[in-house]
């Protein structure tokens, strides 16, 4: 008998073929055509473990340790792997509240249940040791070693800079950095970040669904070892820096000292300062807030970022320009009757002998003398317009490194301000302004804005008789023969070397000229200090006290500026402090302890 339904075998066979063919197509689609599954698979099973490199150490010019690393430990969690645990004991061990424990776990879980995240940042070695003993009770916890900066001398916070977690913007710009990495945020740490950070390594692991490591990825083919950061020798002299910071306590202002023959910054003080250890570890954010809101702005690096009028110290520049343009000579005399009087204008002066020659004008810091010099320069007949003569003057000024960024190895130095002729065109609404309109430039007042670093460099340039190296803070980088060549190239002012002798002689008289010299207080026995006082008028309060100096005269080893906000006369605070700095640097001892004590005790903050 023939089975009546025999043809149904074709239907059944057809269904089998049809469905399996659909599967065949689908498999082709997900395995061959679609790439998204391959990517997902990689993300699933690869874990990148970063091996952080220790940052390089920083030494001072005498190999004194300024910055080193201290081990700290991040306590990490993988939320998925956490099992019930005793939160009371844990909060005892780690010193955080149970509430914070829960909060941190939730935060980590919100980031990823499977991936490790930081539970508690930067615990100390002691806490770590304690926790390590109990870690078996806390499933899903592990510890990741990190390094934190430590500053044994507690000085130069603004010079060294700080280290903190890298921000989102940087991560987007530079794919070296990943969230949670540390980066130099200021000073040397920032400028030499690439050298100091070394290179972090990565190790790729295969992980299972619980994020447990199952072995190395591709037999370590893509792993890289971490390289420790390079050590850096800074140009600063730690003892001098420390001494300067002590002298500046309870004063607002800045000291910058440069070695003239190299351009190396010997000390750079911005006051008030703070202990750099405050910005390290778990206390960092709290302290940072305090420092940011401090009305005295300790985070503001005055040495590089404050624009001050140079006051009478600027007379030296005008003298040099006058000499260069042959408008004056050493023998040029100008009179002074308690000031400079022209038209309805008076620039006052203190009483001294009159008339004076060039050296005496420096010694006595005569305003009238420099008003005459400056007027001569601006009204120079070689130029059709005063503005052109002014532009010429400005070119010479700028050649001292004023009005532009010097190009030091600090990211945050500013250019300062030496107005262009066009600036006065705008101010006076005419191109035919007169020398008298801008006469305050003669004595370093007016619109001039010079940073302490620029003033120190200007001083070093005078000490060098017209040439300078760009001031810099790093002397040596480990493993490198030379520092950046730009710091070993001479820069020349537009003043001939021969003109400096007279000015330097004048500066010598300022300190060592006996009666009538403005900074006799800065005199040091057996050392010829050349200096110039300055008193910058300050529309907001008491005058700023300024002193620039270098020593010894014949072979200058240190040039510096001391700037004391609201310190009054240059001779009252800036000059003695500068003198003490020089004495400290050149002789390593202070003989004038009475002066030192007076300076250390001086408190200019109270009077406010």
């Amino acid at each position, binding site marked *: 008998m023939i089975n*009546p*339904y*025999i043809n*149904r*075998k074709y*239907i*059944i*066979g057809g269904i*089998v*073929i049809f*469905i*399996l063919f*659909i*599967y*065949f197509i*689908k*498999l*082709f689609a*997900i*395995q*061959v055509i*679609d790439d*998204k*599954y*391959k990517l*997902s*698979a*990689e993300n*699933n*099973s690869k874990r990148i473990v970063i091996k952080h490199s220790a940052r390089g150490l920083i030494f001072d010019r005498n190999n004194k340790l300024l910055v080193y690393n201290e081990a700290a430990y991040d306590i990490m969690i993988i939320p998925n792997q956490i099992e019930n645990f005793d939160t009371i004991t844990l909060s005892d061990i780690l010193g955080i509240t149970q509430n914070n424990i829960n909060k941190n776990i939730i935060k980590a879980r919100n980031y990823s249940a499977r991936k490790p995240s930081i539970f508690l940042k930067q615990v100390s070695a002691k806490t770590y040791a304690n926790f390590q003993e109990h870690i078996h009770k806390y499933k899903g916890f592990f510890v990741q070693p990190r390094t934190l900066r430590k500053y044994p001398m507690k000085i130069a916070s603004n010079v060294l800079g700080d280290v903190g977690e890298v921000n989102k913007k940087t991560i987007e710009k530079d794919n070296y950095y990943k969230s949670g990495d540390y980066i130099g945020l200021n000073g040397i740490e920032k400028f030499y970040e690439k050298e100091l950070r070394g290179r972090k390594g990565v190790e790729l692991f*295969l*992980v*299972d*669904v*619980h994020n447990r490591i*199952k*072995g190395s990825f591709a037999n370590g083919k893509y792993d890289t070892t971490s390289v420790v950061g390079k050590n850096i020798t800074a140009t600063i002299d730690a003892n001098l820096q420390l001494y300067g910071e002590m002298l500046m306590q309870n004063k607002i202002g800045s000291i910058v000292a440069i070695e003239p023959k190299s351009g190396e910054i010997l000390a750079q003080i911005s006051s008030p300062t703070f202990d750099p250890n405050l910005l390290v570890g778990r206390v960092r954010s709290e302290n940072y807030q305090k420092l940011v809101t401090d009305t005295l702005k300790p985070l503001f690096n005055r040495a590089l970022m404050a624009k001050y009028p140079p006051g009478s110290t600027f007379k030296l520049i005008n003298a040099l320009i006058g000499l260069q343009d042959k408008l004056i000579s050493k023998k040029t005399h100008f009179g002074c009757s308690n000031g400079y009087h022209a038209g309805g204008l008076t620039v006052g002066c203190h009483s001294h002998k009159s008339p004076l020659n060039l050296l005496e004008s420096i010694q006595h810091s005569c305003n009238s003398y420099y008003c005459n010099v400056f007027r001569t320069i601006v009204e120079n007949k070689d130029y059709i317009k005063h503005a052109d003569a002014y532009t010429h003057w400005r070119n010479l000024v700028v050649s001292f490194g004023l009005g532009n960024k010097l190009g030091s190895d600090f990211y945050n130095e500013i250019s300062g301000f030496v107005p262009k002729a066009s600036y006065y065109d705008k101010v006076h609404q005419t191109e035919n302004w007169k020398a008298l309109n801008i006469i305050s430039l003669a004595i370093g007042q007016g619109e001039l804005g010079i940073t302490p670093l620029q003033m120190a460099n200007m001083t070093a340039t005078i000490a060098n008789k017209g040439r300078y190296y760009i001031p810099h803070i790093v002397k040596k980088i480990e493993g490198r023969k030379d520092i950046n060549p730009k710091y070993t190239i001479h820069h020349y002012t537009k003043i001939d070397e021969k003109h400096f002798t007279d000015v330097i002689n004048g500066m010598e008289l300022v300190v060592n000229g006996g009666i009538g010299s403005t900074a006799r207080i800065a005199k040091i026995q057996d050392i010829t200090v050349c200096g110039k006082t300055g008193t910058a008028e300050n529309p907001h309060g008491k005058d700023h006290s300024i002193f620039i100096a270098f020593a010894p005269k014949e072979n200058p080893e240190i040039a510096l500026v001391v700037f004391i906000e609201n310190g009054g006369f240059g001779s009252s605070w800036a000059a003695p402090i500068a003198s003490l700095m020089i004495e400290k640097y050149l002789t390593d001892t202070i003989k004038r302890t009475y002066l030192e004590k007076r300076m250390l005790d001086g408190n200019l903050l109270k009077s406010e």
Partner: protein
Amino acid sequence: MRRNSNILKQIDWVTVFIYILLVFFGWINIYAAVYDDNHQSIFDISQRYGKQLIWIGASLFLIIGIFIINHKFYSFIPFPVYLLTIFMLIFVIIFGREVNGAKSWFEIGSFKFQPAEFAKFATSLVLAKLLSIYNFKIYKFKNIITITALLLIPFILILLQNDTGSALVYVSFIFVLFREGLSGNILLIGLLLIVLFILALFLNVLNLIIGITLLSFIIFWISNRNIKQTLIGVGIFILSGLLIWGITLLFEINLLESLQILLAVLLSSAFYTLWLIRNNLHKTLLIIGFAIISISFVLSVDYIFNNILEKHHQSRINNLLGIEFDPLGAGYNVNQSKIAIGSGGFLGKGFLNGTQTKYNFVPEQSTDFIFCTVGEEWGFIGTSSVLFLFALLLLRLIFLAERQRSAFSRIYGYSVIGILFFHVVINIGMTIGLAPVIGIPLPFFSYGGSSLWSFTILLFIFIKLDAHRMELL
């Protein structure tokens, strides 16, 4: 005597060869799926692949046993085996051990055993025996009842064990019934029910019921081409509806609108039926049946889905239908499974180089999701080879079934085909997101003694029957 000497020649070696390939490839993949560096020996019996090797060895003895036993024996045992299985199924509900929420395992010492696996085999035998009775007419009402009962009893018992996957395998017997003459409409109805099932989950139940009712009237009109009768029908329906509505209002009965409509359909159907007996319209009867069954089905799907199915089943079904998308919820497994298979690419990552399956991103990677290991390590080449092998096996079995002279052998053969096909379609389908995640193994591939043995017994009894096809009538 002649039989014994020739048995080796009579065996269909093509099928046996495909079986060996599948079992071997399965074992290799179980090794890859659970491989870890601490246990590298493929013969390590503390590991799953080592155990699987023992099951495979034991299967050899089973096969030898099957061949030694007289072939006539198999046509005598169906009812006793079936009864024994039913007892075991009941027994396991009472005394069984719960594994993964399903109470379907016997445990005697270290030996575990799952009666549901053998129930398929027993049901196949008993179905073959019943349908092969001389002059058996499948469309007779009494026979339909018997068949339904034979299938439904183990089905329900397995459902009671919480082993939905194994129970659903009984759907595969539709193939057998279809081949043996069950109306093709049954398959269409099955398809219709699936469509309604999906619609019931997608659409508002009330709208769907109204739609079905309207559809019924449209079919009624198309089949009769009689506008007057159609309008009378609609009138009766509306009157019934109003009547029901009035009653609920009058007696303040709180009744769901969908149930009200169902009652209206039932009531009006009663009127039609009375009226139809006079007019003798068979088609109309079918249409009424369609309407009532459809509406009841939709309502029960809705009820079952929302009140009986557990949350994870609900979301699995929803996920399959694309109703919800959550890679970490119910769809997580399927998503991970697709990632594993997809990441294999064309050539695969190579033996033991799979990361997704090995590191547990894929669940149950040595049992239900073994196909992921194939996909990840052997790529499209591997997966299409496995598909090809299964297609070849199924078509070969259809060929073998059709060459049987005995109806018993043929029907049993189709049972085997149906069961294997269902497992393959569901198991591979769920790993690539084309079938719901129902935990059933891939035949010959998945780790597990019970499943390997039951498929082996299932297949080799058929090979044995085939070897004696000339002697059986």
